[in-house]
């Protein structure tokens, strides 16, 4: 039977928790049962994708409102890593965040590009009264 690990975390809408969530992501990758690829690289990428997605939720979707929260769901099976980051804000248009619109010396806007480069599926949608950024990485 395929093993599934699921982690649910709720954090205040503050960037000081980014390191904590990144470390949880790295530890999760190191505990995966049968992954045959480079664990160090995958751990770094999961840390990075979580950091980018949560920063985006805190700063852009929840607009730095300290009374809001971020929910994170990480699900790992032998086939894939799935991450959902929920925000309570007005949302943003994922389609408008393309690297093609950026100059190399722009200071902002690389976060979503990094997520798209490292994950196999990226989707942002309204769900009940909040938004969810869903990201999937296939492991085979």
């Amino acid at each position, binding site marked *: 039977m395929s093993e599934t690990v699921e982690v649910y975390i709720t954090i205040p809408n503050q960037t000081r928790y980014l390191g904590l969530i990144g470390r949880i992501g790295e530890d999760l990758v190191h505990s995966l049962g049968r992954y045959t690829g480079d664990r160090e690289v995958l751990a*770094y990428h999961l840390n*990075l994708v979580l950091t980018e997605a949560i920063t985006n939720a805190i700063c852009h979707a929840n607009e730095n409102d300290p009374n809001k929260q971020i929910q994170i769901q990480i699900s790992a099976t032998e086939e894939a890593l799935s991450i959902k980051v929920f925000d309570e804000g007005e949302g943003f248009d994922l389609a408008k965040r393309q690297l093609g619109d950026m100059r190399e010396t722009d200071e902002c806007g690389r976060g979503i590009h990094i997520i798209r480069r490292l994950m196999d599926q990226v989707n942002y949608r309204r769900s009940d009264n909040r938004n969810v950024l869903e990201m999937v990485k296939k492991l085979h």
Partner: protein
Amino acid sequence: MQLKTEEIEDIVLIEIQEERMDAHNSGTFKEQMLALFDEGKCKLIIDLSAVRFVDSSGLGALVSGFKNASAREGSLKLCGLQPQVRSMFELTRLHRVFEIFVSVDEAQESF
């Protein structure tokens, strides 16, 4: 952000003493660099050898420093990148923007 700075003639060597550069500390780092620019110091070497993780906010702070230094006819050069940090510059194509050196000495000699 925890930094150690050392002035070598007109060059400021900034050693970043943090394992992570992310949205939590990169805003402060930008302000710390702006304070140096306000003092007329615009030749910077950023030693990243202690940094294990950098995200798009950390890269954005370095780009901000690079642009401010260039606008003042100075420059901002990087050294000591760990492999995963180096891969972030390649992923975002920023390795084509920055001058990146293996060591502080090499960066210093390039001025």
